[in-house]
């Protein structure tokens, strides 16, 4: 395990990597953990190995938080997301080191990924109070009715984070989910979960209400079916699922007519609004016009 250089001979304090559920940092209720290694095979830490019960608890926490987060003003949500960028910026060096360890990339490449992740939060921070104007409409129906369509968050979205890109990929799939008022249950990259755990510390200090983002670390193949089949999960992003597992997860998701997104992307490329729009419902309201 990497230790920061004990220049003065002092022994550093290592971090316990835990889950993030309902705004708290519990260990797995199962008491399990699993070793996380660098691509080179060096042990980095033991991360919590979340159980099916942890996944269900996370859904409960997300459902409880979703109502309040949805009801927050779009302006407020935008500011919270911007605050995430601010907090991340302040810890950029720490994230660069963790990303370099997790992904086995050079410090320079890791720093670029962290910078892109920060900028991605900023990009999404601008969306909450604009997406309704882009995705909504006033509808000219043939009759004396006032008719308009507005996008609304789907509710609770399960996200299987990309396996490779431990921070930028994660932010690229998480930010669009919560920007629009959804609550998220995220399964971190199985092999590279540590930057994700550290990101939850940023979220916890950025006024993201507890439960809006919940993070599970562990075995994706163990957790994904629980979330895909869970009847109180409204949508699932399967981008981080192994390609061979996707069809079965889609079948499980069909049981409650979940919205399913599978969209492999180049995370370094400029983002587009599509991912955000995938987790929105369009609500159309009619009212008669008259005296």
């Amino acid at each position, binding site marked *: 395990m990497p230790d920061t250089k004990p220049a003065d001979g002092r022994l550093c304090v290592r971090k316990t990597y835990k889950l993030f559920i309902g705004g708290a940092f519990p260990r797995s209720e199962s008491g399990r953990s699993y070793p996380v290694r660098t691509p080179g095979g060096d042990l980095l830490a033991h991360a919590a190995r979340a159980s099916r019960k942890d996944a269900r608890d996370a859904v409960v926490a997300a459902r409880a938080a979703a109502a309040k987060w949805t009801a927050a003003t779009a302006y407020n949500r935008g500011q919270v997301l911007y605050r995430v960028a601010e907090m991340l910026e302040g810890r950029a060096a720490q994230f660069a080191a963790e990303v370099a360890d997790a992904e086995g990339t050079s410090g320079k490449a890791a720093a670029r990924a962290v910078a892109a992740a920060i900028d991605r939060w900023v990009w999404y921070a601008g969306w909450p109070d604009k997406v309704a104007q882009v995705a909504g409409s006033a509808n000219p129906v043939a009759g004396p009715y006032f008719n308009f369509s507005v996008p609304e968050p789907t509710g609770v979205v399960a996200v299987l984070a990309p396996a490779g890109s431990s921070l930028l990929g994660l932010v690229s799939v998480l930010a669009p989910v919560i920007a629009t008022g959804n609550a998220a249950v995220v399964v971190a990259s199985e092999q590279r979960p540590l930057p994700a755990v550290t990101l939850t510390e940023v979220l916890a200090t950025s006024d993201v209400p507890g439960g809006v983002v919940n993070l599970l670390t562990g075995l994706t193949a163990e957790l994904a079916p629980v979330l895909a089949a869970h009847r109180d999960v409204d949508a699932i992003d399967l981008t981080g699922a192994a390609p061979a597992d*996707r069809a*079965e997860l889609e079948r499980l998701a069909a049981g409650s*007519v979940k919205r399913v997104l599978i969209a492999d992307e180049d995370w370094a490329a400029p983002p587009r609004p599509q991912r955000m729009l995938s987790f929105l419902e369009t609500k159309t*309201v009619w009212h008669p016009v008259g005296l």
Partner: protein
Amino acid sequence: MAAKASGRAAPAKAAPPGRGQAPAPAVPAGMTAPQGRWDYAAAPESTEIVSIASEYGLFIDGESAPAADGKQLITLNPATEAPLAKVALAGQADVDRAVAAARAAYEQTWGPMPGAERAKYLYRIARALQERAREFAVLESLDNGKPIKESRDTDIPLAAAHFFYYAGWADKLEYAGFGPDPRPLGVAGQVIPWNFPLLMAAWKLAPALAAGNTCVLKPAETTPLTALLLAEVCQQAGLPPGVVNVLTGAGETGAALVAHPGLDKVAFTGSTAVGKEISRAVAGTGKRLTLELGGKAANIVFDDAPVDQAVEGIVNGIFFNQGQVCCAGSRLLLQESAADAVLDRLRARLSTLRLGDPLDKNTDIGAINSAEQLGRIRELSDSGDAEGAERWSPPCELPSRGFWFPPTIFTGVSQSHRIAREEIFGPVLSVLTFRTPQEAVTKANNTPYGLSAGVWTEKGSRILWMSQRLRAGVVWANTFNRFDPASPFGGYGESGFGREGGRHGLAAYLDA
């Protein structure tokens, strides 16, 4: 409303089948109706405009052809149980052929065609539907059992309007908000229900074709005839062969279609149970999917609502098309303080509804579409009795032949009753009560469905407060069951995903 005072003596036998009950309370209080002078004179729409062939083939690659294995099914007039025609029952070989024709058309004609040219074909179809509107309306009422006033004033005009609306998008897709160069998906397999046969065909075909896709449409087993007439319209409009293919058949035809590897897109309207099956069948194939499924809409009436309008809205909400509507307002939520008054008016109004010959221009309630559906309505209604709800129907004699169910209200319904949870898809209204707006929202949202909702109140801020909290794709405030091609329609939750109508409806058929 029930008795039309024509002044002419109506021969007794002219009364439509089943309308045996004396329409007593037809005249507003205060006016006296001399007893016995108000016999109803039937006003049937002529069927002379429609010629139904004895047999119909499949419409594949611009031509009519029998099923490869020669199988047929018989479509009935649900109001009389009389056979209307024999229709081809498409099998796997026919599905293969239709998908191949659609693929060829996508690659060779429709795909490469400029949007402006596609638009003109769609405008032609819209115009042809308008020209032949009465013919379509009569045929729809014959095959489906719905009242002619609904097919004539709602189904057919809206179907034409849908083609007209989406025609205009065909050459403007780059301005629809899906990027500078949105591409069609390819070949779409579309499976539609029997409750609005032509209208659902229009909802599926118009946006798909406007976006540049080609289509294989599978109409419902019991209502194939207007889709086949639409195929004739496509042919006469000069639509290139293979752009629209119509495969009549049964459930296995639809299953074979959605499972076909040659499709890029599957669109389905129908029950949630079948929607889930289709979703499983499509899983892992990469086909794009949109689903418009069942519903159990709450129609919420506050004590400050204008009662007469609300009662009309309640009636329209659950008895339009015999309640065979996915967005039907099948759960009536009445604020306690107004419940008795609304129910009294509602019962009085139901007593004036005319049930009978779908082709009679004054008929309000037509036939149930099939024996199977009638069985389901009966089974669920009986569960209402068994679970302790109180059933009420106006005095109403049902015709001896055909599939009929009287307008029915259940009171004393609790949220756990099956009639409050399951989609009945018939003229059966479950009445529940609430005290506070919050309670109304909680009860309204207490369902896996989320297609539509109604709110009746004079208070504007409450309408908006309720609209924000109701988990439903369409909220009708002080109105119900309104549809328009420019207005997105579709569900939350287990009512499906994707929207039909408006700019949003294009997203289902574009690779954006």
